[in-house]
């Protein structure tokens, strides 16, 4: 009967905390700036000379900045719970809201919601930058590259998927931070999960293992959602890839929830 008001109260409390935390606005701005900045730079650095056929996935190229933007989203998520552990605030939070699962659920909702909002702005800006820059660099409809547009099915899927991707990364980071309870260790773990898979896959000795690593990694699988060309050549299909990331995020949140539920704060 009073389940709903409890959840609503937790949500309100977490929203107030995160909203009034000094870094939140700047981190959300950093998500947008990093994503759009790197994406625009990548588009500006790529040219397709008229006489060449360019094996370029313009959709993926114009969303390159997500590679950096995800790190900013991860900081926000890690600080949302890790900050409470480092300042001791978590004990006050749990005294006020003894239902620990509700606390984590509220944090997850607020963090994922804010990342979703910032991610939407970031991805829209990136696609816009690509649509403005790329036609001037030889990626013209006459050359086989239609101008990027969200009305185009694969581009819309890549863009909407990238927004979901950023949200899932923030949930993954939140779960890890709840599980390890220390901001520095949590951010290290998250960054290792995000960035080691593509690097190890790039040098793995056997192509079989390369493929497995790309199918398993949260970023390598998750970012396949950005592919708009050559979908048959992908190690994992776009939505299945995002599913892999969702499993990682769910596992991390579950681990964090269990730690929060069964361990003293």
């Amino acid at each position, binding site marked *: 009967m009073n389940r709903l008001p409890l959840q609503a109260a937790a949500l309100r409390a977490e929203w107030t905390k995160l909203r009034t935390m000094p870094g939140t606005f700047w981190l959300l701005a950093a998500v947008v700036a990093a994503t759009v900045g790197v994406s625009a730079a990548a588009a500006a650095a790529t040219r397709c000379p008229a006489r060449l056929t*360019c094996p370029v996935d313009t959709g993926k190229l114009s969303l390159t900045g997500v*590679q950096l933007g995800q790190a900013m989203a991860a900081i926000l998520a890690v600080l949302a719970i890790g900050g409470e552990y480092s300042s001791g605030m978590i004990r006050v939070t749990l005294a006020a809201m003894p239902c620990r699962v509700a606390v984590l659920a509220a944090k997850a909702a607020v963090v994922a919601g804010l990342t979703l909002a910032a991610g939407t702005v970031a991805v829209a800006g990136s696609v816009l930058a690509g649509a403005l820059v790329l036609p001037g660099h030889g990626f013209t409809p006459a050359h086989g590259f239609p101008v990027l547009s969200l009305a185009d099915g694969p581009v819309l899927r890549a863009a909407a998927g990238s927004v979901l991707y950023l949200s899932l990364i923030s949930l993954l980071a939140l779960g890890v931070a709840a599980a390890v309870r220390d901001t520095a260790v949590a951010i290290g773990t998250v*960054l290792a999960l995000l960035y080691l898979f593509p690097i190890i896959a790039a040098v793995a000795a056997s192509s079989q293992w390369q493929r497995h690593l790309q199918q398993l990694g949260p970023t390598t699988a998750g970012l396949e959602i950005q592919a708009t060309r050559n979908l048959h050549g992908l190690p994992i299909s776009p939505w299945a890839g995002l599913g892999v990331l969702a499993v990682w995020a769910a596992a991390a949140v579950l681990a964090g929830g269990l730690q929060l539920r069964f361990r003293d704060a």
Partner: protein
Amino acid sequence: MTAGTVTRQRADGPARSAGFARVLRAEWTKFRTVRGWVIGMVVAVLAMVLVGLFAAGSANIACGGGPGRPVKTGPACLPYIPAGPGGEAVTDSFYFVHQPLAGSGTITARVTSLTGLHTSGNAPAGGDPLAGMHKGVVPWAKAGIIIKGSTRPGTAYAAMMVTGGHGVRMQYDYTHDIAGLPGQVSAASPRWLRLTRSGDTVTGYDSADGSHWTRVGTVTMGGLPSTVQAGPFTTSPLSTVTSPFFGGASSQTGPSQATGVFDHLSLTGRSPGGGWAGVSIGGGPDSPGTGIGAFHRAGGRYMVTGSGDIAPDVTGPGSAFPTATIEDHLVGAFAGLIVVAVIAAMFITGEYRRGLIRVTLAASPRRGQLLAAKAIVIGSVTFVTGLAASAFVVVLGTRLSRDQGLYVLPVSWLTEVRVVAGTAALLAVAAILALALGTMLRRSAAAVTAAVAAIVVPYILGVASVLPLGAAEWLLRITPAAAFAIQQSIPQYPQVDTAYTPPAYFPLAPWAGLAVLCAWTAAALAGAAVLLRRRDA
């Protein structure tokens, strides 16, 4: 007054250095007594070793097979690769028309034509396909004269040659290349080539008319026996076309062959065996090329056709067999780097979090000294830890790869030391960068992310993204990720065409790459020192 100043300096000097030693000792004590940091360093070593050995151990090489032949695995698949005089792996396959030359002597020949066929790329307009091959000579097709220790692959040599696109060259002992006359060879503009051996010295000359000779180079070669094989040769390496984009087929390779036409061939000196004999050198299944080699003599004209190369082996697409480099086993350095960045950032942010920084600064008020002491402690600890981990993983990983049948390109011990110690230095400097960022930002999450985003993200964008090659190379030139150049063990040879792309090849030289990271770190340390002095703790 002067005396007073001197006295004060004398009194102050030792006291100040004793003060710094005390600060250093305090920081070292802090580091080694925080259990989490010591465990963290162990985790960094484990991460480096396990990730590195996984990358090496997952090779699963299989070869052979086909109708009626068993599939072989493991070391049975290791190819036979000759080693050059410097110990490096070399390709040594060409068609050689030779006779022995005892002691000193001179060989001279005129080259009037160099033509060829190749399978892909660089096709001149209108090239007609002939059995899947196009007419056209690849840039590093070679026809010329050579003095070589023996007909065994890998022996020392010196050669004068015309090339498909790089003019006349003098090359010796696989890795050395000196430019001679520029321009293409043709019947209208032939090239005269001459090699003179006198003891251990070989001198190469070229000429456009056979009367005015220019010395191209003189080399001292200890590796030549008293009787060598001398004569004309032709070879033609894999044709390579590198697309400026990653993703999909970024580089296409295929075999090629070339035919050189020689006349005015003369050999002076004490030559025990008479007559020219043709032999195909090193044309095994592991060598690149069409396997075609022949020579025809018509009066004073010799037509020599060959395929292959006389050059150092490099890693890249187009190898007939899978190759690895020693630095492939150091991929765990990225895992180690993230762990080390966490520890280094906490080394200062931990003090801010607990308020310990106020006690620290009360005990040692010189803030610059405090930062220096912390940098020295975290840098040294990381260097020693990283050195142990990278030495272990390179030695063990190389052995593991070879046991799996993966050919690891051999390098000199000096290069191996540079790669191992350089990786340790890279980790140490990265740790100091994380410390400086931690001092400036005072928040571990932000500091760790900034350090990792500065070093690892440009690397990922450079090697595993859809960025074009030019942009990727700029990233690996100006960002701290340039430092991974220190791990490149096989140099880029201008006389070998292959896809010199990251992650195997970096745009900067090894130490220059590390210097880029050092410059970023120095700038961050300077910023940290200023902020530490100006801001309240």
